[in-house]
């Protein structure tokens, strides 16, 4: 190794100082990282070490050192850098470390997590969808029930994993399952519900939440809320998990009444489902959105509100959509509202219910589910980040053709800590924009939540009312009123 001519070499001898070779190599490595330093030697000045330094052009010509001396040698771009590096090296010889122990590592994998403390019984999976099937399969293999919040999981994976789960008599809630309450423990977006006699088996997340909250208002508690994922009653999945969930709630001693909530199932699946429900051995409400209400062989309801009411009635209670509160909401917003209806929803099933009610009333409306993939790409779900709805609401306020906006507000675990305030701000801005244009924009809605939810339902309601939102006791009631407003306008125009 040749020593370059345009560099500086410097040495420092520490008389009778001893450090072991590993410490010295570590020191040399550290000092060598300094700017402008080319090479560092830190050695005991034994003849063997001096020979090594000499071979690599690192031995100063005028060096005087005894074998029990410690020698620092630095080659660097200039003399100043050499001296600074020697100072640093000398300081490094006496530095100490506090030796504080490292913190414990959190488990990373399913298997590692199972080795921590008491064995878990349920795995909650919200990894990116690409990896979710892998984690779910590991969890099922280990005998865990699974709550799979992840979406973007392939249908073939869903079928395969649900078959695997059914073989093991394990729940696989999801993929794309938003809510569950199992043995009183809430997972995902879940309202704080009193324990009670109704089990809800849900292929729709906010649908289950709305039913549970309406039951809560009627003083009826929930025993289990089992999400199964939105595709469970499709022809491909064939209700694999709905069937298992029904088995479990049928056996569950705390359950007296069972509600199944879903978008309308595939035809062949629907027949099997209704046959299964008719033979369940417990009173059942099939809340299948958009279907006609029927009473036999199974009670079928086409709206969430209808499903909740039927279940309450089986228990001798009633979901009071009391006239007084509907009237109060109506009074808050009957003037104005001239124009069409736009729905800006964070809950997919609430959006679907509104659409059904408006359609049944013969009112065409633009109902958007802002939690749908096309709106959430690259951003959080609007139930987590309520600001996502603001721009849609403000835009609606600027549209002269829009007279009524329908909104929802979902409370509970998982939801934003104060979803009301950003919605209220957006409502004020939209209404002000419309007012500046000489129009009145009506905003109607409901709060899906219970008195025990962490956000405080009364405070959230007040925030919305103060912003001029006409608040109804249920999503269905708000939608009915929107439909009535449009139909009244039509009648008025026809008379005129």
């Amino acid at each position, binding site marked *: 190794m040749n020593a370059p001519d345009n560099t500086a070499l410097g040495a420092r001898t520490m008389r009778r100082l001893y450090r072991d070779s*590993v410490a010295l190599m*570590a020191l040399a490595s550290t000092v060598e990282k300094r700017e402008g330093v080319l*090479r560092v030697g830190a050695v005991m000045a034994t003849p063997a070490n001096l020979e090594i330094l000499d071979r690599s052009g690192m031995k100063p010509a005028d060096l005087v050192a005894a074998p029990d001396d410690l020698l620092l040698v630095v080659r660097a771009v200039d003399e100043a850098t050499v001296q600074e590096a020697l100072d640093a090296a000398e300081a490094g010889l006496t530095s100490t470390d506090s030796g504080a122990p*490292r913190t414990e590592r*959190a488990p990373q994998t399913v298997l590692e997590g199972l080795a921590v403390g008491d064995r878990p019984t349920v795995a*909650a999976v*919200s990894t990116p969808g690409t990896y979710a099937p*892998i984690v779910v399969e590991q969890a099922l293999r280990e005998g865990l029930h699974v709550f799979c919040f992840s979406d973007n999981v392939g249908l073939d994976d869903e079928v395969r994993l649900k078959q695997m789960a059914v073989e093991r008599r394990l729940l696989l809630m999801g993929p794309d399952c938003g809510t569950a309450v199992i043995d009183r*423990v*809430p997972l995902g977006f879940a309202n704080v519900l009193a324990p009670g006699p109704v089990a809800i088996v849900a292929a729709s997340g906010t649908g289950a939440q709305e039913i549970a909250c309406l039951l809560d208002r009627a003083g009826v508690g929930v025993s289990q809320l089992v999400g199964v994922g939105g595709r469970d009653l499709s022809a491909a999945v064939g209700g694999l998990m709905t069937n298992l969930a029904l088995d479990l709630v049928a056996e569950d001693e705390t359950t007296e009444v069972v509600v199944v909530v879903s978008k309308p199932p595939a035809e062949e699946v629907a027949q099997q489902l209704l046959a299964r429900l008719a033979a369940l051995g417990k009173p059942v409400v099939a809340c299948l959105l958009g279907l006609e209400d029927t009473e036999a062989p199974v009670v079928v309801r086409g709206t969430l509100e209808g499903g909740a009411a039927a279940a309450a009635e089986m228990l001798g209670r009633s979901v009071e959509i009391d006239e007084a509160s509907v009237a109060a909401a109506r009074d808050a917003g009957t003037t104005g509202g001239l124009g069409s209806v736009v729905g800006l929803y964070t809950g997919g099933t609430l959006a679907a219910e509104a659409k059904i009610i408006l359609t049944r009333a013969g009112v065409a409306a633009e109902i958007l589910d802002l939690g749908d993939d096309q709106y959430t790409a690259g951003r959080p779900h609007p139930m987590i980040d309520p600001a996502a709805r603001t721009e849609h609401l403000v835009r609606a306020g600027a549209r002269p053709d829009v007279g009524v906006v329908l909104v929802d507000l979902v409370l509970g675990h998982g939801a934003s800590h104060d979803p009301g305030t950003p919605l209220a701000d957006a409502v004020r801005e939209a209404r002000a924009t419309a007012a500046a244009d000489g129009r009145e924009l009506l905003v109607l809605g409901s709060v899906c939540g219970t008195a025990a939810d962490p956000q405080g339902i009364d405070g959230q309601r007040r925030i919305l009312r103060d912003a001029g939102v006409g608040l109804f006791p249920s999503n269905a009631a708000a939608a009915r009123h929107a439909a009535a407003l449009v139909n009244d306008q039509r009648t008025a125009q026809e008379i005129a």
Partner: protein
Amino acid sequence: MITGGVRVLNAGLPIIVEGVPSVDVVQLDWRPPAFGDPDLARLAVTLDDDATHAANRIALAAVHAARPRLLAVRPAREVVPGLADGRILLHAGPPIEAKRMCGPMRGALVGAALFEGWAQSPEEAEALLDAGVIAVDPCHHHSAVGPMAGVLAPSMPVFVVEDEGRRAYASLNEGLGRVLRFGAFDQEVLTRLGWMRDVLGPVLDGALQASGPVDVTSLVAQALTMGDEGHNRNVAATSLLARRLAPAIAPLPHALPVLEFLASNDHFALNVSMAAAKLALDNAIGIEGSTLVTAMARNGVEFGLRVAGTGEQWFTAPVGPADGLFFPGYGIEDANPDLGDSAITETLGIGGFAMAAAPAITRFVGGTPDDALEITRSMRRITLAPHPAYPLPPLNFSGAPSGIDVLKVLDTGVLPVINTGIAHRQAGVGQIGAGIVTAPPEVFGQAVRALHARRSAR
């Protein structure tokens, strides 16, 4: 409804379990498995079932059951399979043609050819090697292992390690400095090799015959309690071995130079524990369905991995130089890509895996004794069980993490840590540092694909 109550393992967003009492939540620090390759992760999960677990139990039990004894020191040609006739030299790592070898390995082969008298000059030796007149083959294919270049020639003496009638072999360690295993082949090197052949080998063999076999498991276990990790630090094991043999060496001719040689070579026992590790791990070769790693070895160009369930197949990927500390006057630019069969120690569960036992050398990896504990703990995450014969005092006598499972490597993304010496890239310069390498991730992916294909074919 849930037997045992709801206790949640949360893989993903903490918000999902916001409503669950925190005592009933195990929050994972979840990361994408299989180094972020979802297709590979699927294959790994498919393999991770009862059949594989059963195969791994059998494989690991076979490895742990081995009790290798150092039996003899004999010329390689007498004992190593395939070395009795013809011109053949063995080398470290997975197979590689002579033309593609790194400097130190070619240097060592040239030296071995000169030593055997097969060539009269280095140029002639290189020509014979390139032409295939002198054949080359991995040590691992001949029940043998060798550190660094790992070159073994028929007339060199080898350690003979035996258990239940099965044997494994390793060369004798030459010491540091200008030595064949770093590619040096000058007269000093050849003279020392001649002395090892004519004096050291026969004396050690005589001593072993007089004193009886040495229990290598016990030797290594004791050294682990004395500050060795069994790969980069062997001073305790070497001292124990020398002490054990000294009384039997003393009466023999040439006793003093032999004892002086042992006294001056801190790594002398490494080759013994390497042969013993090889013997133990070979017990698992070919156990159908097992995902246990049976060998990790480097040839200075490629890293090679073998897995029990795929028998003698090698999975290879390019290898880089070790990250470590360099002797004065040398730096990373001088370093040869990693080389040697000595990672057989980590494959068994000592070396880097037993770092906790050797606080004295943790500064080679820029660390403290805490880091040493952490390295050993992290190796637990990718191994099947503690080695019952190798309790580590700093970890409350729990055994060294033993038996690398390729499925666990993919699941955790944790790569095996290997302690290693660093060779100069030019033949013959010698060791220029020491440090740590991790196995390349690719080889574990290849192994899982091959295991999966093999299962699908069954």
